[in-house]
């Protein structure tokens, strides 16, 4: 109440969660990675939809899109997107598990974070082998 009377100045309070001194843990890193991979996936989606549309349209359009898709740039985007899909997939399943009220003990939550990170790499390599 003291702030409200006299001066109209806003009290400058520190922002939570103190980014400068925040000690990162596997749980927070695996959480923010879910958001990052979800958004980064749009690069692969846009490239993929462009490629599919070019196939629908004409030989010339497909030649251009196919050249991009099969270039080192295209391979980088799609391999990255593949990992992003698997990471987002595992983190999403973890979210459903958390939502059901399970796995919230610190030890289990930390273990599940590593499952997402390591599991996504394993699934990416497996997909590359199979596809």
């Amino acid at each position, binding site marked *: 109440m003291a702030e409200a009377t006299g001066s109209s100045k806003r009290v400058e309070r520190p922002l939570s969660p103190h980014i400068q001194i925040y000690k990162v843990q596997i749980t927070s890193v695996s959480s923010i990675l879910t*958001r990052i991979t979800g958004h980064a996936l749009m690069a692969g*989606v846009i490239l*993929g939809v462009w490629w599919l*549309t070019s*196939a*629908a349209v004409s030989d010339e359009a497909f030649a251009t899109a196919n050249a991009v898709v099969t270039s080192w740039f295209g391979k980088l985007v799609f391999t990255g997107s*593949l990992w992003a899909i698997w990471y987002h997939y595992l983190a999403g399943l973890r*979210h459903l598990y958390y939502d059901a009220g399970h796995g919230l003990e610190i030890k289990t939550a930390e273990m599940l974070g590593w499952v997402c990170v390591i599991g996504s790499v394993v699934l990416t390599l497996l997909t590359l082998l199979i596809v």
Partner: protein
Amino acid sequence: MRYLTDRKRATGKGAAHTGTEHHWSMTVSAVALAFMVPTWLYIFGHALGAPRAEVLATFARPFPAILTALVLVVSMRHFAKGSTTMVQDYAKGTALKAGIVFVYSLAAVIAATGLYALIRIAL
């Protein structure tokens, strides 16, 4: 004696006021995508890098076409809603509104373009 029920007095008193519907929508689309994505990855990954005739033959078949259409529509809705949460976390005022309009528009354009391609291949 109180005439209002506990539920009635509690509704809308939370910090966010709304969100249950959004959360449930994300849950439903997440489960749908969890079932569809592995098979779709196999089909799409196989077609990627193939000659045009092979790509057209793949997506002219009913199963790959319908699955791709479903993945497109559901995932773009999942993206628009999920991205809205991110915009709400980091922006306010006009930037918040413009951000939400942008992510929904982007999702709509991508889904529409993909569906156009699938229909054109099917015809």
